[in-house]
């Protein structure tokens, strides 16, 4: 249970088409992440799957049956919202029990499921509190609890971690991944944060302006980005994209080298420049290199704490075998 198929799905708001015809299959048990810059249509796509927005044309199939005209409640999907959307006047227990109560389940079964969910998500201690008395992370867990008690065929997450602080986000990221491993239910997750996408996904769908740029596992996208957009979007810090004369040397319109694929050498290297800002993270140091004659500023990673200062000369050698080449249309040259 939990296969979602989109066939030639489009969505228009008035005269503007935000999603041009789009095909996508989300396999059973997969953790799929929609990622892209803000306004790329990823949340709209999720809402189309959920049924909160009507699609303009095309079909949505869930588990092989046409769900295009089904109301959200009948699709068997559960959604976790960005603002958590907890019901503020109900206790945690009532919040989690709400979908079951709406499904007219008997009280004993409701209690059993709510207690089980509370157990799984460590909500036992504040089950009788109201959402207003909980921290952001706890509210997030309640929202997930409300989703899992329904035993849906798939979970939809709409940027669920964007309201949490950085430390909590890392923790919740792990918890959601753990949950996926344990439940083995299909999950569709929307985020603009490519680190979340890379760390959690089985399959990443990169979107731009409603168009799917590439679908693949995190490492596929990292190793073989299909075009310049994906190359620039996946990976942190961003890949260095160089056009012009230097790219022409490699028979390409654009070449891309990730900061971690450039070696710092003593003395002159293939590329030379001066150090700008240095970001010391302890394990790594990221240098911004100026005046390389390549047009763009370069970002370079050095492992460990390298003692180069602002204004120092630096020599660099890109690793040829890790270089990505793109043609004038931005597509990858194999």
């Amino acid at each position, binding site marked *: 249970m939990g296969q979602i198929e989109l066939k030639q799905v489009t969505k228009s708001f008035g005269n503007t088409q935000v999603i041009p015809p789009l095909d996508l299959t989300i396999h059973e048990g997969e953790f799929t992440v929609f990622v892209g810059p803000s306004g790329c249509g990823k949340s709209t796509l999720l809402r189309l799957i959920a049924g909160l927005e009507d699609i303009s044309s095309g079909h949505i199939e869930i588990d092989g049956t046409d769900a295009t005209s089904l109301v959200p409640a009948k699709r068997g999907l*559960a959604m976790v919202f960005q603002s958590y959307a*907890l*019901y*503020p006047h109900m206790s945690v227990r009532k919040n989690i029990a709400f979908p079951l109560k*709406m499904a007219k389940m008997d009280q004993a079964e409701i209690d059993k499921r709510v207690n089980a969910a509370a157990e799984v998500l460590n909500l036992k201690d504040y089950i009788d509190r109201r959402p*207003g008395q909980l921290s952001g992370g706890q509210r997030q867990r309640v929202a997930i609890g409300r989703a899992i008690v329904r035993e849906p065929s798939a979970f939809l997450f709409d940027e669920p971690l964007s309201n949490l602080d950085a430390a909590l986000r890392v923790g919740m990221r792990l918890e959601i991944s753990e949950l996926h491993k344990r439940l083995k239910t299909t999950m569709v997750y929307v985020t603009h944060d490519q680190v979340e996408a890379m760390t959690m996904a089985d399959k990443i769908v990169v979107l731009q302006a409603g168009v799917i740029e590439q679908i693949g596992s995190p490492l596929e996208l990292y190793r073989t980005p299909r075009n310049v957009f994906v190359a620039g979007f996946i990976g942190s810090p961003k890949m260095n994209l160089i056009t012009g004369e230097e790219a022409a040397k490699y028979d390409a319109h654009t070449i891309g080298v990730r900061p971690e694929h450039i070696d710092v050498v003593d003395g002159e290297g293939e590329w030379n420049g001066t150090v700008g800002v240095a970001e010391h993270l302890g394990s790594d140091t990221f240098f911004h290199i100026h005046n390389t004659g390549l047009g763009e500023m370069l970002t370079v990673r050095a492992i460990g704490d390298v003692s180069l200062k602002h204004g120092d000369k630096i020599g660099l050698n890109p690793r040829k075998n890790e270089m990505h080449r793109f043609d004038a249309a931005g597509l990858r040259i194999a």
Partner: protein
Amino acid sequence: MMAPAVVLLLGWMLVPLVLTLWFSFVKFLPMRGDSIAKGLDWVGFENYVRFFSSSSFWPSVQITVLMVGGVLAICIIFGVLFALLLDQPMWGQGIVRILVIAPFFVMPTVSALVWKNMMMDPVNGLFAHLWRFFGAEPVVWLQDASLSSIIFIVSWQWLPFATLILLTAIQSLDSEQLEASEMDGAHPLQRFAYIVLPHMGRAITIVTLIMTIFLLSIFAEIFVTTGGAFGTRTLTFLIFQRVIDSQNIGLGSAGGVYAIILANIIAIFLMRIVGKNLDQ
């Protein structure tokens, strides 16, 4: 720094209160020659006993409660419905909203006169014409259904206020909550009962509190329409009659003190509910 303001406010509040308290313990009949200059006779609690044991006292309290309760019920039920309607996207929304608010801008005296003479007049009123058009005998509204008519007039004035506050409450509801409940399988009526109505609970208590305070002192509508006849004499109107019609300032003041006590009992009662609701 705050002293002048405090003195002014206290004076504003305390002078009338102290005067009322003083008058309520003296014999003060201006038409029989009593005046402050000549000195007033202290009569103790006689005015209180007379006001309380008067055959008009309990009926007036009952009518006050009926009137306030009736207006509140109408304003809140229809206020919620109107707020739900006005929240829907529609053509000419801005103009419709202004029109809905309009009755609140009409002075109570004016609106009572309009209703009395234009709508409810048994000979020339619009209702009378409508009734005759259908071949029915026109109703003498302010005589045969006097209390309901006044409740209706006052509700017409206060409904916009309730609607406006409840509309802002509806608009502040997070749309994701509604979507979440939709995904959870709640149909529209359930969404209203479980999500929208509880969300509006706070606004409803505030509307109730504010309106009760104002409605306890309804006067112009009664004065203009029935003059307190046909079972529309509220406590406020009874006090007015004691002071102005009977020219018995002492007795009226004692009634005023009863009204203060009654209003405070209701206020404490309501504040508790509101306080409970606001805590959440």
